[in-house]
């Protein structure tokens, strides 16, 4: 096979892997949007907050240490223990559930039946609040996250492809793990949605709040549930991105990458978020590889947004968005 084709194949594979990470972030948006019609601007910051909490718990950091030290004149920084990764993840999930409950109790519950734009504004406020809370709890320094996920280039793929084509593919181990975890997550979420009583209630709430209330489904419970799920997805996304490029403020900006994914896949479809992510991932890598040289490169920065714009014009509900059922 000619080198160009092989290289394109490698780029495609890498694009798929990057796409999975985009999908993970987009998934968090879809969950909340579907169930409550809220576009959660804070999703990216939630990923940052979750990742920072995870690192903090693993390292045995004292939460709010700066604040405590400033008030009481103490010099606390670390508990002096290290928590194993798995336990830390479980604890972080707990923190995200408490956060979901607080968001519902203190913010969203008071905004029932308000305009979408008001709910959206509330999540912007939430984003800034969480950003500050994350800094206050765990400090604003750049942290490395190591939960024992494999790093580096996968040797097996490199060797096998080299033997077959005389050209070794470079695929990151972390990307492979991320892809597998994302796939499992999506399957679990879809099964939950489709086959459990709570999942059915969740879809019912997504369709019609009032009717859901009338059959005795508690909106409060459902919304805590979706915010918890979104928090969990944010944790997984934060873990993957954090392991790749460190836990720092820029982690919250991955939310921006999720926007074109949502436009493509549709705001209301879980499979859409996945496929949309993959298309954007592969698309931007291949575009950079094939067209990039002709226009002077750096197409990765804008490709996704232009694609999203085209979709907004020609197919606003996205590839998989729920069709608006209109009876005549």
């Amino acid at each position, binding site marked *: 096979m000619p080198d160009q084709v092989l290289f394109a194949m490698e780029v495609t594979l890498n694009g798929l892997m990057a796409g999975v990470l985009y999908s993970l972030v987009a998934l968090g948006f879809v969950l909340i949007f579907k169930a409550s019609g809220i576009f959660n601007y804070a999703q990216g910051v939630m990923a940052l907050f979750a990742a920072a909490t995870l690192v903090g718990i693993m390292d045995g950091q004292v939460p709010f240490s700066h604040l405590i030290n400033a008030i009481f004149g103490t010099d606390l920084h670390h508990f002096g223990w290290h928590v194993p990764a798995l336990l830390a993840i479980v604890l972080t999930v707990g923190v995200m559930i408490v956060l979901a409950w607080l968001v519902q109790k203190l913010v969203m519950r008071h905004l*029932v*039946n308000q305009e979408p734009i008001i709910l959206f504004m509330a999540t912007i406020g939430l984003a800034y609040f969480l950003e500050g809370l994350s800094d206050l709890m765990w400090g604003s320094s750049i942290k490395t996250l190591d939960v024992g996920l494999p790093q580096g280039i996968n040797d097996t793929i490199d060797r096998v492809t080299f033997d077959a084509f005389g050209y070794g593919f470079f695929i990151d181990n972390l990307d492979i793990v991320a892809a597998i975890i994302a796939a499992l997550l999506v399957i679990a979420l879809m099964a939950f949605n489709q086959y459990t*009583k709570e999942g*059915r*209630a969740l*879809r*019912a709430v*997504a*369709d*019609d*709040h*009032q*009717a*859901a*209330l*009338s*059959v*005795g*489904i*508690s*909106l409060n419970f459902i919304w805590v549930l979706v915010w918890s799920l979104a928090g969990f997805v944010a944790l997984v996304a934060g873990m993957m991105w954090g392991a790749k490029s460190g836990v720092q403020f820029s982690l919250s900006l991955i939310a921006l990458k999720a926007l074109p994914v949502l436009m493509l896949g549709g705001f209301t479809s879980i499979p859409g978020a996945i496929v949309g992510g993959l298309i954007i991932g592969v698309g931007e890598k291949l575009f950079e590889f094939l067209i990039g040289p002709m226009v002077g490169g750096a197409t990765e920065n804008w490709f996704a947004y232009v694609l999203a714009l085209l979709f907004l014009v020609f197919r606003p509900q996205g590839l998989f968005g*729920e069709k608006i*059922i209109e*009876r005549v």
Partner: protein
Amino acid sequence: MSQPLTQARSDAAPLAGMDDPLLDVSNIEVIYNHVILVLKGVSLKVPKGGITALLGGNGAGKTTTLKAISALLHSERGEVTKGRVSYRGETVHNSDPADLVRKGVIQVMEGRHCFEHLTVEENLLTGFYTRKASKAEMNADLEKVYSYFPRLKERRKSQAGYTSGGEQQMCAIGRAMMAKPETILLDEPSMGLAPQLVEEIFGIVKELNEREGVTFLLAEQNTNVALRFAHYGYILESGRVVMDGPAAELRENPDVKEFYLGMSDEGRKSFRDVRSYRRRKRWLS
């Protein structure tokens, strides 16, 4: 003007439960958004095992009354500011809708409100949400609903949003039945349906009432149909009960005939005449 009817009530046979009603709404006032006064002191009683009709034109306050009972007002920024709604002697107007469903009161909302993207069967199953019964019981209840609405069984796998208006109304009533309610608050079941379908739906309501012992409080604009199937009726006008009585008597009442059934001794009147008649009548009373 409700005087003669209220007196006649005592000798009506099917209204034995009136002294000890299942649902008692007493003198409630409802305000939306802290400013809009919708109900100005509505009182009504729903006896166990009866079909009680709540009649009146657009904006009379029928839906608001039902929502005040089922506690759905709160999510629409409405509030019961005076009076009391009690169910089996317990004050309920400030409780949670889910609590009321567990107590046995469920509302079928105006305009069906099926979950469009769920299948018909999934819609029915959402009605089971608050119950802690076994799966076998769930399936048995599902079959029961299908026996009342065979048409739903045919369409069980299609998305509710794509079914016809009549099927959606059946789906909404079936969904409420899955909660095994003692009382169903049925809001405008005839809306947008062909007369034949309206008959069919009311027929099923009557059957549910007689065979399953479900108590109904139904809000209707279609006075004619409602008074044929109900035992007792209340007529609302701009947030007040203006008349009440056994359905059979309401049907014969000249005012009801005049205003709501469009009939009078001199035959059908034009709308203009009715309006002036009505104004005069109000002035006098």
